[in-house]
């Protein structure tokens, strides 16, 4: 409705405003997505690749853990307080941070002797 209380007869304008609004929301959404740093870790033959993950301090990071083995693995870390089972040939998401600079070891609970790595926060 316009100021005179009549229904606005110009649908084009409303459409334009709507499109602009949607566009803005999409844009701000993608900006928010782009802000979350994504790091991929692979599990092959019960080992983590890379076994050292470097991330900036005070930043939220999305770890995408891809298990390329047929066996399940549990990504676990006491220091990061993270624990996630990733079944064979699948992937899992684990958010970490924001963290203080330092080293945060993680391991595969099902193969704790071999599957070891650490997140290095710089």
């Amino acid at each position, binding site marked *: 409705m316009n100021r005179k209380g009549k229904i606005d007869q110009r649908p084009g304008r409303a459409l334009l405003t709507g499109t602009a609004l949607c566009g803005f929301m999409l844009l701000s959404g993608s900006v928010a997505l782009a802000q979350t740093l994504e790091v991929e870790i692979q599990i092959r033959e019960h080992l983590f690749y890379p076994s050292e993950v470097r991330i900036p301090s005070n930043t939220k990071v999305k770890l995408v853990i891809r298990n390329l083995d047929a066996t399940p693995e549990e990504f676990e870390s006491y*220091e990061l307080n*993270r*624990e*996630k*089972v990733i079944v064979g040939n*699948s992937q899992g998401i684990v958010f970490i941070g924001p963290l203080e600079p330092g080293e945060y070891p993680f391991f595969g609970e099902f193969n704790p002797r071999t599957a070891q790595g650490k997140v290095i926060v710089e």
Partner: protein
Amino acid sequence: MISAVIIVLREVLEGVLMICMLMASASAMGHRLRWLPAALVLGFFGAFSYAVFLEQISMAFDGLGQEIISASLLLAVAVLLIVHNFLATRHANLPEASAPALAVLGVCVAASAMSMSREGAEIYLYVYAFGVQAGEMASVLSGAAIGAGIGLSLGTFMYYGLRALPWRTCLWVSAGIATVTGAGLVMQATYYLGQADILPGQAALWDSSSLVAESSLTGELLQAALGYEATPTAVQLSLYLASILAALGAMALARVSVKTREYRK
């Protein structure tokens, strides 16, 4: 084999201690252990289904299904333990005013089965993949049996220890254990919620890992019993304390409700 012992013991410990506490507490409230088979059957079924559908569960909720289910199970058990404290306090104050058997046993069955589902699924996945599929049945199964054996012995020790107390003391001690166990479960739920980016990541308030490391034996035991966390954040600490207050509040409420009942007579 050693890793099988450790994995199974770690998973089993927390659940076994809670179930044995509930067994002692329910007995002190005058209920026989006939609820236990139902809890075990439901728990095994829950663990099996959770493990079999884990891939689909993980993919649900944009890849955060595992965290959401785990956190929900943990919080549900924490709430049931608070209900347990209410029921136990009521019974300890005035046995005639005790809740119906269905309520007490329902809490015991539901809490035990939910706890077993979460922990059992991991054991099943491990034993199936590294024992059955990898053809290492003997070493994995014997390791798992030793781990489960140690956990069950500790649980048995706890059950008979609690049962040796006068029934009222047994209920108070059980309620105390339920209070800290529940807070520990809430603490664990915060890890999953943080992992799923539902709870915000924050700077830790302190770091006591040089005092007691979470990966040490003491740390593991403290974590299973109290939800020990070496680097808690403000949100985690507040939820932990809120859970303890809720458990104590439920006990105070039970006491008041019994007193008003006595007064009316």
